[in-house]
């Protein structure tokens, strides 16, 4: 299938943007910026999907990733010691092995792309992609679609159980210590040990 020149140029620019921003995710100092670079990479891929006529998927990608990366940036600020990138950051382990694995994955998959003989069957002329997706999701593949929904619900329940502060047998933080204000220092913000005060737990 031949695309007009404008589409080809747009694809080239978006592809470069997607790869460069994906690479910048792992070599920027600021973790918040890293999540925004990831967002840029996802949006570039979403636009490429729209160029390929998968309009619904491209737009769904925008919505989903915009929210997801905001959540990710929030988590970065909450949990990481260096969210703003004020210090140089290179937190990696097994670096050479990882680079090797990444390059090997690219070479193998790229080799498949270059050498394999995929059938050329472009989209039929009168196809309405969104309509066909909707009819598939609520028609033949409804079971798959609904299963995905049930799995998402299960995930929500599991996530609340994992992350909830209060478990069935007491607080989730019981027995753990808050981090010190300096490395190896006293735990910060520990509640004072309560003496008496009617907080004894009795078994009835």
């Amino acid at each position: 299938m031949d695309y007009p020149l404008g589409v080809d140029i747009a694809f080239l620019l978006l592809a470069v943007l997607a790869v460069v921003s994906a690479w910048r995710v792992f070599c920027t100092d600021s973790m918040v910026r890293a999540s925004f670079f990831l967002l840029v990479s996802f949006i570039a891929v979403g636009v490429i999907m729209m160029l390929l006529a998968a309009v619904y998927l491209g737009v769904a990608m925008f919505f989903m990733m915009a929210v997801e990366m905001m959540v990710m940036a929030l988590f970065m600020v909450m949990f990481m010691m260096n969210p703003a990138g004020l210090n140089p950051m290179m937190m990696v382990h097994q670096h050479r092995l990882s680079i090797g694995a990444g390059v090997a994955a690219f070479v193998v998959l790229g080799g498949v792309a270059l050498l394999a003989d995929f059938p050329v069957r472009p989209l039929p002329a009168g196809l309405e992609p969104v309509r066909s997706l909707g009819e598939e999701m609520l028609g033949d593949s409804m079971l798959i679609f609904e299963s995905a929904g049930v799995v998402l619900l299960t995930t929500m329940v599991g996530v609340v159980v994992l992350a909830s502060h209060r478990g069935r047998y007491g607080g989730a933080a019981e027995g753990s210590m808050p981090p010190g204000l300096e490395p190896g220092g006293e735990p910060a913000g520990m509640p004072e040990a309560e003496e008496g005060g009617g907080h004894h737990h009795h078994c009835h």
Partner: protein
Amino acid sequence: MTLVTLLLLAAALIGIGLYGALSQQSFVMLMMGLELMLNGVMLAAVAFWALSGAGAPEGQLLTIVVMAVMAIEMAMGFALVVAVFRTNQADMTEALSGLKH
């Protein structure tokens, strides 16, 4: 924009994502690597759907399923980060050396 160039782009994203997932010490950065790999997978699925699959609707459905997987991965990942942080005060993979706190 041909199938080969699209698949090469997908391969590049998967390769970078694999590098990130294997090399990063921080949990959230590690998850970003996984997300990038899924990004490449979705792009490859849409490329096959549009250029090699004659617009079979299952191709788009596959991408929707991968999107659901991505949402599940993010939610479970963040919940595990919260749970690990509560018990171990850890935000690095190295800090986890045992299953019991």
